[in-house]
């Protein structure tokens, strides 16, 4: 297996896998530039090294974090080529086979589940301890993301094609679905925080500072009714959002009239 220093160089370069993203070859240049420290170690012969680099100077597109297991597996296969126990075509074939599947898994887990979940956790934190919110988001998200990048690379280098089974045991698609339910639950909590800390206190209009902790309510059931109203309106907007209406159009159709009404009426 390549040295620890080589793995660290590949790991570092994997963070720039999209630096030269283009519509034609997408992450192709980023992938091969991340791979080159490993190929430098594997091949002492210049012509063989260049041949190996040329094998991977091609179209590549996948989720940026899921590139790590593919990089690791390709490094393992190239070591087999050097040791004459593997074919030169195995690495590119594996790269091509995995990029679509891992792209889909990465999109479903990281973009569609983990990122919203961590963002919502950050938003909850903002309402209670202000500027720590973004830091909470960054901490929670990057723990998972960097772990995936590092472990994926190390497993790929050690196991080669076996990294596919290794990653499958973690069943990321199922965790993605669980993450979405947790996000939905947290969003329900966020909606109530918005009622308590933002919507209800603005009944004190003359203050230039939001009266964030003072509640100007006559009945303790008022927040409950306000929350019910907010949930209904939110579900209504959700329904509208599922129609072919962009966020921009929804904003102009709803917020602009509200702004005009607010200025005229109050």
């Amino acid at each position, binding site marked *: 297996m390549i040295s620890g220093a080589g793995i660290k160089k590949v790991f570092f370069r994997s963070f720039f896998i999209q630096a030269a993203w283009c519509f034609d070859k997408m992450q192709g240049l980023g992938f091969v530039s991340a791979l080159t420290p490993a190929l430098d170690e594997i091949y002492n012969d210049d012509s063989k090294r260049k041949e190996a680099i040329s094998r991977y100077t091609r179209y590549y597109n996948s989720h940026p974090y899921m590139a790590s297991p593919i990089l690791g597996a390709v490094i393992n296969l190239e070591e087999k080529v050097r040791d004459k126990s593997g074919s030169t075509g195995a690495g590119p074939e594996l790269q091509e086979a995995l990029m679509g599947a891992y*792209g889909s898994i990465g999109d479903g887990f990281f973009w569609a589940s983990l990122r919203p979940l961590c963002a919502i956790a950050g938003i909850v934190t903002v309402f209670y301890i202000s*500027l720590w919110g*973004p830091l909470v988001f960054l901490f929670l998200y990057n723990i998972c993301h960097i772990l995936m990048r590092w472990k994926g690379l190390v497993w790929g280098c050690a196991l080669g094609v076996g990294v596919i089974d290794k990653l499958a045991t973690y069943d990321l698609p199922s965790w993605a679905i669980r993450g979405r339910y947790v996000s939905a639950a947290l969003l329900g909590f966020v909606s*109530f925080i918005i009622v308590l800390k933002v919507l209800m206190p603005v009944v004190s209009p003359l203050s230039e500072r939001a009266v964030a902790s003072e509640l100007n309510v006559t009945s303790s059931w008022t927040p409950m009714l306000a929350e019910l109203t907010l*949930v209904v309106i939110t579900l209504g907007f959700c329904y509208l959002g*599922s129609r072919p209406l962009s966020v921009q159009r929804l904003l102009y159709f709803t917020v602009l009239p509200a*702004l005009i009404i*607010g200025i005229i009426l*109050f």
Partner: protein
Amino acid sequence: MAISSFLSEALIIGCVGGVLSLDKTAALQVMVSRPIVSAPLTGLLTGSPTTGLAVGILLEMLYMADRPVGTYMPVHETGLSVTVTATSVAYITSCGLSPSMIGLGVAFGVVAPVLLVCIPVAALYRKADIFSRHMNKGLFDNACAALTPSVGEINTRVTPDLFMLNLRGLFNFFWPIALSIFVMVFILGFVARYLGGVYGYPGALRLYPAGALVLMLALAMALSAVMTRTALVVFSVSGLVSALLWVVIR
């Protein structure tokens, strides 16, 4: 405030926006480009972290469902969050309010109309992003050329060049968006200062309906990011249970 200080402020914000935008695609992807981070950072720079937090919460939720899948490019939330924050703070300052003292509720009200004005700018930022990606095609072609030796040449120094060639893409991603943010922050900041100076602050109550609606819309868009039928039920139950628990505990 003199034109030269508008310019220098817009230049700094443009550079910061450009650097943060690199995280969106070109480098790291540690999510400092997300609105919940980039907007408060811009707010800290411009003297109103609370406004930045309000912008960050709104834009993070509004565009939570917008993801980069395949060749689809989502809205440039980083550029938009930096622009909306800078414009909102410019407006607040010109109204005679103290940006560092403003509360979250008031900030949401101010951000709502500014968002309506700044939304069309997202199209310019997307075009800048597309332009960057077209420029990067030249880098891949250079890499292929570097791997094809000229007659008589033994090119043994290919490997370092590929990484540096790759990193040149960072510059291609940086300057179009930084320039776009600089120009738009300058123009919109100027307009915001003019309108704030002439018309003043309309008051929290007048901006309340717009601020409330934009928050609800943002909540709905965030919910649509995780939307399944079960998730909608979970959301509704969670919100109502939170309210019920609050009533019981109080």
